[in-house]
């Protein structure tokens, strides 16, 4: 899923401090799972903003709450069509994708980010999310024991490990597993150490963000 983290409330206040009517807009998908932008967080952020405005003596400022099933889909974003233009600003606490799609659809209304969108990752345990994929567009996991060196090695090495790997940890941080240690452990477990011996030639990054904004087009499912 897409993992996001809450933005400091001071930063959000800076965006909306001159608004009179604000909509805090959450998303029921990934950001709910990572507890950054679901219904619960919409309630907390809206209450915080109300408290701020009331402390400023701005009792007339209205802060409304709404959480959509998804903000990355036309269908659900349409649900606020009738009310959107009442607002001076929308604070979206969906991931960056949802924030942008909301801004795109409601072109004349300012839409502000309420979260920092971080990465594609997993819930390792409650309150701990870690990165797994950088959406490079050309997956190589078949050769690396199902562990991604693009996302998980600090130097994106394809023929690793580098000389800084020590006791299974990465050179940049003793808390961080060395991706190549994990890869080697897994290759051993599946009895495919032969894969390590193969020289991994230069990667084509044109399917990564280096190739510019990407698209996936599927004629078979288009209507």
């Amino acid at each position, binding site marked *: 899923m897409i993992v996001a983290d809450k933005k400091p409330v001071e930063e959000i206040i800076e965006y909306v401090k001159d608004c009179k009517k604000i909509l805090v807009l959450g998303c029921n998908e990934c950001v709910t799972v990572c507890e950054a932008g679901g219904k619960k967080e919409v309630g907390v952020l809206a209450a915080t903003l109300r408290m701020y405005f009331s402390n400023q003596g701005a009792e007339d400022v209205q802060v409304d709450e709404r959480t959509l099933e998804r903000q990355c889909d036309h269908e659900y974003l349409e649900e606020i069509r009738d009310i959107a233009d009442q607002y001076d600003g929308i604070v979206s606490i969906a991931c960056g994708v949802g924030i942008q799609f909301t801004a795109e659809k409601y072109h004349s209304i300012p839409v502000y980010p309420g979260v920092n969108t971080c990465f594609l990752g997993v819930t390792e345990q409650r309150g701990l999310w870690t990165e797994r994929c950088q959406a490079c567009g050309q997956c190589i996991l078949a050769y690396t024991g199902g562990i991604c060196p693009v996302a998980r090695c600090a*130097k994106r*090495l394809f023929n690793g490990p580098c000389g800084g790997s020590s006791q299974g940890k990465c050179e940049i941080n003793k808390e961080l597993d060395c991706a190549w240690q994990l890869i080697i452990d897994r290759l051993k477990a599946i009895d495919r150490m032969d894969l390590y011996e193969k020289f991994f030639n*230069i990667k084509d990054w044109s399917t990564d963000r280096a190739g510019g904004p990407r698209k996936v087009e599927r004629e078979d499912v288009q209507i």
Partner: protein
Amino acid sequence: MSAKTPSKLEKVMAAGHLGVTSECGPPRGSDPEVIKHKAELLKDCVDAINVTDNQTSVVRTSSLATCIHLKLMGLEPILQMVTRDRNRIALQSDILGAASFDIANVLCLSGDHQSFGDNPQGQNVHDLDSMQLLWTVRKMRDEGTFLGGDEIKRPPKMFVGAAANPFADPFEIRVPRLAKKIEAGAEFIQTQCIYNLEKFEEWIRLAEDRGLTEKCYIMAGVTPFKSAGMAKYMKNRVPGMDVPDDVVKRMADTPKGSQAEEGINICVETIQRLKELKGVSGFHIMAIEWEEKVPEIVERAGLMPRPETD
């Protein structure tokens, strides 16, 4: 092995002599005198001088520019290139730039992570990894083509090297990784600083069993300690460094005033022991900001005078 490039370092080792290299870290400023001064200290006691590329991710004068200074002084530089800061376009371009000055050696590295340096917020590139860079230089040299396939007019004639750390984890991958580097094109290897001699000897024995020491010159890396503090720092703080307790103790048990001397003694003893080891083709003396001691180390280790090449 016979020499394939105009590299003096390659010729020395191909002739069966132990090669000697040291390094020159470019200054954190643009004063060429700093480079020239270091080079003067090293010039008679080594075959070639490595020029580090923004080592520990701290901004310095570029490796390429510094190599050109050395070359213009009549010395033999080894251009170090890390893949951290430049993509494949910039790397190939710098290789051509170096070749235009007839710089005949290159060392391909991934580089320390930028979080260790003075720009920890920076982007890192890593378009290629160090092995892919090795492969790139070999392709440019041997096939005379760019990565894109176009022909290179006057391809670079470079002796191509890489680093190896026999002490990093996991140990079992260390020899296969060396084999991969050689397969990717490494003709010489400079190792991480050696303090754990038993482990190094085991590594080279395993490399020999696989026939790797026949295919590639292995230069053993050494660094003299200046103080007991430095030994402790290297043991505890430098990733991938293996400093055994007895070495740290030997430094700590030496009175402060003689620690520098003891550091040199350890370094000389290391070289003397490894000189006898089959599979070791030379030494890479990394005397970090202590270049003035290199002539003494080389002399005392019995590696002087340096052999003449044509």
